[in-house]
């Protein structure tokens, strides 16, 4: 973590728990940089997370109130805290399996209520912490510990899901798009209502090794090549869109 952001981290936490090549460190940096640039006071912020690798981004690293909850339930805990004390600036940071599979119901209902909170979903397209099982976000055909012949089910488009449920701000960026990602988080944190940022974050340990990415850099390169801005989608034909990940802001707030 960059020295200028040290004040945002607990002094007694010396290292991050993430694997080499994991994208979550970049995301952690982007979140804190967004907070720094917005001058948000950390003593009025509450970071809520579920269970999984991404849930460890705020807990115990961030120098603020953190609530590390049950698997899937971060948004439900966050709802109670925010409703009782609206002064708290509530940010939920968790993974794709946590927020959209076991916790999918809470996600859509918080979006429907336009609950005033920011949800940052670190999407590595797999269950990382438990050993690389197929997720509701795993691409068709991808190999995982529980889909060794390739995933036969379509993944969720999380942004469309949350958008349909009524969110006030929706964006998707990859950790390879650091400036846009930071700006999106800033916008999400400064927009009232339910705001959602999906962040594509590579998992070389569980996803990469099962899907012919020989090195973490291969995953980053592939991410950079497959991400296309939402503005370009209209100009491209169906074939050119194959295997592409559309990034950008889908609901502007």
């Amino acid at each position: 973590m960059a020295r200028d952001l040290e004040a945002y981290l607990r002094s007694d936490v010396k290292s991050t728990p993430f694997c080499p090549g994991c994208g979550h460190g970049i995301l952690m940096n982007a979140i804190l940089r967004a907070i720094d640039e917005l001058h948000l006071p950390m003593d009025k912020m509450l970071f809520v997370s579920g269970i999984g690798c991404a849930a460890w981004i705020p807990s115990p690293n961030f120098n603020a109130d953190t609530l590390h909850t049950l698997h899937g339930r971060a948004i439900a805990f966050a709802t109670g805290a925010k409703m009782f004390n609206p002064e708290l600036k509530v940010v939920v940071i968790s993974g794709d399996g946590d927020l959209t599979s076991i916790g999918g119901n809470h996600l859509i209902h918080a979006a429907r209520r336009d609950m005033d909170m920011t949800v940052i979903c670190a999407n590595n397209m797999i269950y990382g912490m438990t050993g690389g099982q197929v997720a509701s976000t795993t691409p068709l055909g991808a190999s995982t510990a529980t889909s060794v012949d390739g995933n036969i089910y379509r993944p969720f488009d999380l942004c469309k899901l949350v958008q349909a449920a009524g969110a006030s701000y929706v964006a998707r960026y990859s950790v390879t798009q650091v400036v846009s990602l930071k700006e999106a988080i800033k916008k999400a944190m400064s927009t009232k209502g339910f705001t959602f940022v999906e962040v594509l974050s590579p998992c070389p340990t569980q996803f990469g090794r099962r899907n012919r990415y020989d090195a973490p850099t291969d995953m980053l390169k592939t991410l950079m090549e497959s991400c296309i801005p939402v503005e370009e989608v209209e100009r491209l034909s169906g074939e050119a869109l194959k295997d592409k990940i559309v990034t950008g802001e889908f609901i502007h707030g």
Partner: protein
Amino acid sequence: MNVQEIDSLLPAGSYYFSGNEAATEGAIAAGCRYYGGYPITPSSEIMERIAVRLKEVGGVFMQMEDEIASICSVIGAVWAGAKAMTATAGPGFSLMQEAVGYAAFTETPLVIVDVQRAGPGTGQATRVGSGDHMQAKWGSHGDYQVITLSPWSVQEMYDQTIEAFNLAEQYRVPVFLMAEEAVGHLRERMDVRPKVKILNRLKKKGAPPFGTPEDDGVPPMPSFGEGENLLVTGSTHNEVGIRKTDDGNAHERLVIRINNKILKHRQSIIKTEAYSLDDADVVVISYGFTARSALFAVERLRKEGKKAGLLRLKTIWPFAEELICEVGKKAKKIFVPEMNRGQIAGEILKYAECDVVSYCQTDGEIIHPHKIVEEMRSLL
């Protein structure tokens, strides 16, 4: 511990309430200012009334998407500074169990009113049962303690809800009011006193919120937004909240303390009532709605000159083991009528040295007083 005598919000006097309405008023009187819930028979009247009452007193009501979200939102609200509760029945209580363990391990004070119906499964949603006592004790994984109360009247739905909040705050523990459908829907007179004694959680700036030097202590509890940089986690943690998932000693220390803080103080937690107990040959041990029938039976048998007595358990967990041990030494027989298949009779068997006769009724009806008279007469 911060004890307060406050004026009752509800004007003092007599009211004709249902048990569910009384529990709602007890919660408001105790200072409950957040409720997260989901509709379920036979508890829904609590949610309907508290939705209105919380608005009147400046609290927050949330109807959540399911029971899991309800209890999780309650835990979130408690850490944001609220006294909070939810109410449910068997199926919803089952869904809440993972979060109950989380609350016990993070030492989150909260109250659940379980208006028990005839289970298992969906069972008979509108009919009475009392089959959730073992679930209340053992429902979540791992070793932890909760406190459960068993009301027998509308008055106790009010009084014990206040007590539930006070115990939750005193011991930083989940407390369950194990009501039964019959008392939830019963209407009878109850009294509201002019003053209400309430306990508020202890706060101590900078003190560790998850550890005490004693192995049975209750640490002070700060809230979010107070500048304490709280670390709340359901993983094993040290006294300041840092995860210690590889440290066997940290786990042992925490598990022992969350058990001891209840078990070592059980004598001051447990409440019972005795009727004609001293010279009784046959003692009926009863709780909840069934104790009303049991009291009728004891009074009837005493009129006949028979030595019958009643021990009523107002607290189910922690269990009144010392008292039951004593009763078992003096009585010839203990009779335990229950609207389940003998859940508490099994506990009594562990501690009483005399004969323990279990009477089980699971037909969705209350146990008729005459049935208890008849059964006890055959034992006398």
